[in-house]
């Protein structure tokens, strides 16, 4: 059972109360939500629904917008890919941020916030399209990225685990060379440690591969789905049988 989108296990009661009521529109709650984002950045939790409420407050009250908090919300959303979280956050940002504008128009505006959003959107695209090697090289290519993810504790680790999770769903066996690039773990020791301790995978150095134990996603079974037959489907026929007899 996955929690519904509007729920979050780690959400404090006071935040929950605000979200349920009309205070979610009250500009005075902005600081509470901002503190909550800071807390999520520290303790590595993520509450998409609450963060969207903060972005909505920014949407309605542009003068309250704190660029840094807004980009932190986006950065946090990156750590739960693949999911619609990032694009739902973008949807509440002002249209002038033009997250996927590549023709450089916005650069002319010379706005740091716009530039940050566009950079993060680029990272999101790389993650969502599973170009993990490019993701790491892009992330490491510019100091601006380092600034953007600096507030999010364990950003790289969170993303790495997420990538590993996706690999585990699709692969039963993967070559060490590819894994190195995808996880950005260049030393063999670190890679082995991560694969065995964090993911519980088996490293086969002789064959140069890492084996992923069978899980629900990568076992791949063929099956024939049979039809569900319930008595209710025959209701009409049965009813008619009775009616005609009478």
């Amino acid at each position, binding site marked *: *059972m*996955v929690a*519904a*989108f*509007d729920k979050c296990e780690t959400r404090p009661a006071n935040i929950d109360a605000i979200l349920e009521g*009309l205070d979610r*529109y009250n500009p005075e709650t902005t600081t509470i939500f901002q503190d909550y984002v800071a807390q999520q950045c520290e303790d590595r939790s993520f509450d*998409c629904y609450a963060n*969207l*409420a903060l972005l*909505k407050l920014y*949407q*309605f009250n*542009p003068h309250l917008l704190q660029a840094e908090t807004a980009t932190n919300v986006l950065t946090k959303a990156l750590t739960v890919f*693949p999911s*619609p979280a990032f*694009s*739902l956050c*973008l*949807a*509440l940002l002002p*249209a*002038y941020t*033009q*997250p*996927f504008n590549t023709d450089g128009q916005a650069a002319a505006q010379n706005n740091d916030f716009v530039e940050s959003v566009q950079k993060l*959107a680029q990272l*999101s695209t790389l993650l*969502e*399209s*599973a*170009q*993990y*090697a490019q993701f790491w090289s892009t992330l490491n290519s510019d100091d601006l990225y380092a600034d953007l993810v600096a507030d999010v504790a364990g950003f790289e680790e969170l993303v790495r685990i997420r990538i590993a999770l*996706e*690999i585990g*769903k*699709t*692969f*039963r*066996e*993967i070559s060490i060379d*590819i894994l190195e690039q995808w996880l950005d773990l260049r030393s063999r020791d670190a890679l082995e440690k991560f694969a065995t301790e964090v993911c519980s995978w088996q490293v086969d150095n002789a064959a140069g*591969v890492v084996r992923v134990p069978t899980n629900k996603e*990568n076992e*791949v*079974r*063929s*099956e*024939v*789905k*049979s*039809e569900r*037959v319930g008595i*209710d*489907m*025959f*209701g*009409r*026929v049965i009813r008619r049988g009775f009616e005609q007899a009478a």
Partner: protein
Amino acid sequence: MSYEERANARPNLGDDSDVEEEALVNDYREQVNFDDSMSELDRTTSLGAGSQTQDLQAQLAAAATPLEYQATLETKFASYDNYCSLFHYILNSEGPVDLEVPSYYWAWDVIDEFIYQFESFCRYRNRVARSGSNEEEAQLLRENPNTWGCYSVLNVLYSLIQKSQINEQLAAMKRGEDPLAYAGEYGSRPLYKMLGYFSIIGLLRVHCLLGDFSLALKTLDDIEMNKKAMFARVMAAHFTTYYYVGFSYMMMRRYADAIRMFSHILVYVSRTKNFQKGGNSYDAIAKKNDQMYALIAICVALQPTRLDDTIHSALREKYGEQLHRLQQGGPEALPLFEELFRSACPKFISPTPPDFDNPAVNVDPVDHYTGIFMDEIKNTIHNPTIRSYLKLYTTMDLKKLAGFLEVEPEKLRSWLLVNKQRSRQVRWIEGGLLEGEPAVANDLDYALESDLIHVSETKAGRRLVDWYLRNLARVY
């Protein structure tokens, strides 16, 4: 076998749905007839205005009447003031007001028109700022930043919901209790109850227009999405609800749920088609109808699904060639995805006044949302290609497949990962609209053992019950 019989023989439409639907169809007939008498009513009220009550009657009628297409800014401001004073009167009088409302459908018309004017005002304001040509209007808009403000619009909707205790009433109905026990002084009156109820639908729409898709769905927590729901009694409300719910699902990448919503309403509309022709809302409904077919085409391309027969043939008729191109995928299909999305998405708005001094920084909100949606399409555009190839094999070498597709093996690995991810989707089972369970949304599954792709296909067994029932209905 006639269409009617086939529709009746389809078991998955719900067993009591036919009786329900007949009732709705009759109801709709009444509405159409009613609209005619409504226009007469308009004429009589406009004859004599002057005294207090008649002034109020005029306000009530005006609130439900669309503005002229070429209405000036002054008219729009005046219309906003009219709504403000009307809602103020309804909400803040001492005790519930005893109003004789022109009609049962009046409540929907008022909320619908209220939001429509908000939407078109915001879009107009944004357009004035972007073009930067009409300095006079820009100045007028600059001086009135709070007219049609998002806070006042939401305030009206939320106040109507709270005053009528409609959510409490609906929750009670869900539990099988008597809603009147929770209705209170206001909510027990049809005026407040209906305004409150349609304000929920209105909120769904406003949230969606502002790009808050999860909150849009959350708003409907207390409303049950079925034909027994109150919104189903007013055709336009029924239609609007499913359009915005389906669209919100689509933006949350829950395509299976989006398809379910669009199919539901489109099947219903196809059955009531004969009656719409007479109605004056026919054009609006026909347009939304086409939009939903476009959206369903997008969703089906992203997530291959077996559609209801009626929908499937109508879709082939309207978008046959485009659907084929969408389903083929590949970069060539991108412009088509964008074109259909733009033609079928809601008219998104920006809730705050634009920057009149720098026309260049104002971006059309529709462009913003199209960009966000298209990013996801670009990321998944190779899924159809992957699927069509893998269907042919049980095992396949990755490098060989990469050779067929003329791409780098590294790229192909990414495509395989993406396709696998997107074939897992949250799907609604029960409870609130935001709830759901992850489900495998695809009959094709695979796993990689280094460079060897193992493919498996889930086959659907023969569907005998449908066939059996259909034939039974014919001979027996």
